[in-house]
């Protein structure tokens, strides 16, 4: 099994390299290869640029070369970790922008996912074990609200309540925007770039408190949406599993209901949830633009939006590659997890 697992993971990682190569070509061609009103040089243009200046810009950035040459120069640079500059961000290094903002998205995504799992799975179990009863209805309504309401609306409601009305009612408030109080900027040691983790690693309690208070509202908003999906998935798969013959056999053997549910039923019911959860996690780590905009959370989603609206193909290439890596790795983890959960599933 160990040998199989190792060779399977290795094979998948090698395949991932080819997938990344393919994605890079596709994204590169799409962003630079077609005659378009919005070419790659557009991000460097000012309103006063004339055709001569546009040509100069093209030469400066290699945009006058044949597409395949441009791609090979890009690939050479990418392999040496040179992803270019982003003009919309004041000509900062594209990689440094990503490096600064990605950890913030990770912090938001991971915390939201954990909370969604903690809430969503039990909610799904409640629903499944008490079908068509009040807890089931309540749980399903909560899940429906979670994935039906627009994210920006949920976020706005939280801001309205916790930042505005709480203030009017002279209650303690939560910050409506940002990721940390301003006076920490430049005055704390940055290790991972994830504020909560850095605060723990450096033992900086005030920084930890500030990071957590700023994280609460966006995390609640995002987890509320995710919880809806997870609860619904767990419920439907659990209901299906609980009607299986082996569950009846387990009960008839005298096993406690807790053992039946958590050791037998949940293991099989969780598989579709794992799939959904993995897809959702890959999606939110890629950047939840709406949440980041509502809460002015400077994550990679917000940056990607700025890059897209400013024709920054450098950032979009890096973003696409990283998103593909994340999805690939998450898929691999899920597939491996399948094999542990269900011995019938073989890794090939």
């Amino acid at each position: 099994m160990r040998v199989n697992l190792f060779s399977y993971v290795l094979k998948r990682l090698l395949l991932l390299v080819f997938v990344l190569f393919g994605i890079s070509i596709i994204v590169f061609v799409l962003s630079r290869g077609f005659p378009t009103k919005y070419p790659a040089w557009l991000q460097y243009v000012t309103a006063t640029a004339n055709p001569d200046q546009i040509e100069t810009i093209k030469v400066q950035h290699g945009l006058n070369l044949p597409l395949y040459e441009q791609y090979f120069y890009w690939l050479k640079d990418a392999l040496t970790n040179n992803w270019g500059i982003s003009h919309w961000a004041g000509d900062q290094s594209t990689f440094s922008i990503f490096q600064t903002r990605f950890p913030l998205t990770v912090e938001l995504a991971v915390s939201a996912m954990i909370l969604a799992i903690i809430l969503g799975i039990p909610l799904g179990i409640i629903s499944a074990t008490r079908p068509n009863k009040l807890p089931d209805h309540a749980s399903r309504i909560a899940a429906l609200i979670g994935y039906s309401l627009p994210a920006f609306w949920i976020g706005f409601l939280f801001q309205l309540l916790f930042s505005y009305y709480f203030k009017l009612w002279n209650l303690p408030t939560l910050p409506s925007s940002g990721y940390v109080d301003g006076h920490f900027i430049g005055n704390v040691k940055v290790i991972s770039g994830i504020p909560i983790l850095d605060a723990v690693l450096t033992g900086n309690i005030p920084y930890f408190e500030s990071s957590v208070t700023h994280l609460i509202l966006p995390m609640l908003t995002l987890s509320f949406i995710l919880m809806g999906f997870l609860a619904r998935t767990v419920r439907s798969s659990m209901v299906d599993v609980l009607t299986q013959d082996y569950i009846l056999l387990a009960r008839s053997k005298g096993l406690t209901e807790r053992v039946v549910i958590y050791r037998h039923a949940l293991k099989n019911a969780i598989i579709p949830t794992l799939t959904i959860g993995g897809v959702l996690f890959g999606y939110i780590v890629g950047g939840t633009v709406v949440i980041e905009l509502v809460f002015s959370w400077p994550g990679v989603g917000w940056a990607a939006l700025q890059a897209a609206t400013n024709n920054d193909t450098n950032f979009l290439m890096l973003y696409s590659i990283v998103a593909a890596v994340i999805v690939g790795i998450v898929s691999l983890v899920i597939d491996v997890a399948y094999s542990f959960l269900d011995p019938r599933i073989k890794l090939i």
Partner: protein
Amino acid sequence: MYFSKKRQAISRVAITVIVIVILVVAAGAAYFALSSKPTSTSSSTTSSSITSSVTSSSGSSSVASSQSSSSVTTGQSSSSKLVYERASGPTSMDPAYWINAASREIEFNIYENLLGYLGNDSKTLVPFLAQNYTSSTDDLTFTFNLRQGVTFSDGTPLNASAVVFSFYRGILADSGTSTANYFVGTRAPGLINGTYAFSHTFGKGSANYTQAQVDALINSHGIVVGANPYQVVFHLGYADPLFVRYLAYESCCSIVSQTFVTSHWTPPTNGHGYITGASAGMADPYMSNHTAGTGPYFLKSWDTATGNVVLNANPTYWGGPNNTGPAHIQEVDINVVTSNSARVLDLQSGTSQIGDISTSDYFSFLDKTTWLSSQKIVSTSPSTSVFGPYPSGVMWYVGMNFQIRNPDGSIASFQPWQNKNLRFAMADALNLTDIVRNAAAGFGEVADGPLPVGTVYYNSSIPTYYGYNLAQSKSNLTAAASALGFSASNPKTITFIYMTGDNIGQAVATEISTNINNMNLGLTINAVAQTAQQEVGAVVAGTVSLFWLQFSAGTPAAIDMLIAFGTGTTNIGAFIHYNNSAVKSLVLQAASSTDPQMTTQLASQAISLMNQGAEYIWVYYPTTLGQSGQIFSSSVKGFQQNVAFTNAGLSFYQLSLG
């Protein structure tokens, strides 16, 4: 029954787990909320360190100022701190460039010019860093005597050398958004001597920016130190009555510490020429996130991830032309809050004291019925103050491209906008009064030319020759159909571009397209929303056909707007291949006239000619609350709007908290 009871037990366990989790989360939230300050925002600051930061290129996300003292007194009360929330943040602090409105607004409070404006007077030029100035009789030589005893935030004194350096720095940058934009001029030898031969962007200079070119620029003696270390002399290549106004323009010409810039500069390695401290044709990466000005504030910190900026009052500020001492407000936190709703809530709850409020949210603060019925501003809350409406110095218009290109650069076969009937058909299909009253909620005036209300040469009596009249529009469209060859059996499509999120642009595009399309004469107008970058790119590339865009007055004189629209040699006129020689002649005469009355007359004649051909459809001059869309907490005192600061932004120096 047994299994049902067991399932209930499981559910109880699950419910218990959920309840415990919720209680833990709520308790944690309450604990942290209780431990946070009541005015908790993302920018509360008590830090005393101002030099402990790293640049964003190494992965961290903050920068700090160059204040020479090693610490700043802490313990300031909340009344000495102002929180200002904006929709977007700065991307550069280099005063040699105009990068975006957020950058310029911050630089406006850190740096100063030789000349400027005070209070709400946008017409009177006031000496700032210059004590006084004289000009030769031919207006080709200007001599400025600087104030003495003024220091930069790095402690070095203001002198003529720093002024000369600051101007050449901007000229050497030679970017479309740099100081060069204003001083290279339109013909040899340049507005400032020698600049035209040097500049590749605006003149005849080489893109290689050789050392020989740089040396030739310096040796042209366009800007030199005068008879003493506090005297600067400008030698112009030709007389321009707007020259001194350019010096006051807040989007350029700011004076920076030469010592500070030079000490952090390294010579270029790409073969470009340079003077000590400034490389030709290149930006200075250090100065994009460090500052050293003479202004009332200095940069305390800048989080490049969020865009949040903290400014601290400059304790050694010279006091301005009226010698009013350092700034009243010790700390200004400029926070980027992208959500309109969040900015409204924060202002209403008192979390922020100034908010950039979009027009669509104005009525969260003022009584809509009173405004729409009587154009009176009545604040709906005692905790906020609404100032305005004021002229914004902006003009919105519908533009038509007289030489449309295909994406591959070739000339498109269908060129509709050369046809005057078609232009009038569009103009007569738009109800300007309705747009201003309904789409703009009354915050504006119908436009009759490119020069906005409040600018020096604005003339309210210029006729437009078009007005909302669908019958007239159809008649013109029928004539255009015959001339251009489109019909129901040979239909043509035109795309009308406006910016995403611009509801007024959408209303204009929708109204014109609906009215024209309903005429069923074979011409279809598709209204399409695009990002600002896409639209500007399409205009610059010449692929746009019909578009909605704005122009801001560069100076209170706004002659630059007339030049942009009327000469066809620069900016918008060049992009759309505008070609009316009579208008061009009048505009150039107006631009070179030194008699304000003559300038007004010539400008009015030029605009009248443009209007006779409906060469542009001037739509409206928006008015604004605050300086450029700000609403204030009632605790903020001292605000005065100045249309001269349209491109500069809010001055915090004038404000106090009480």
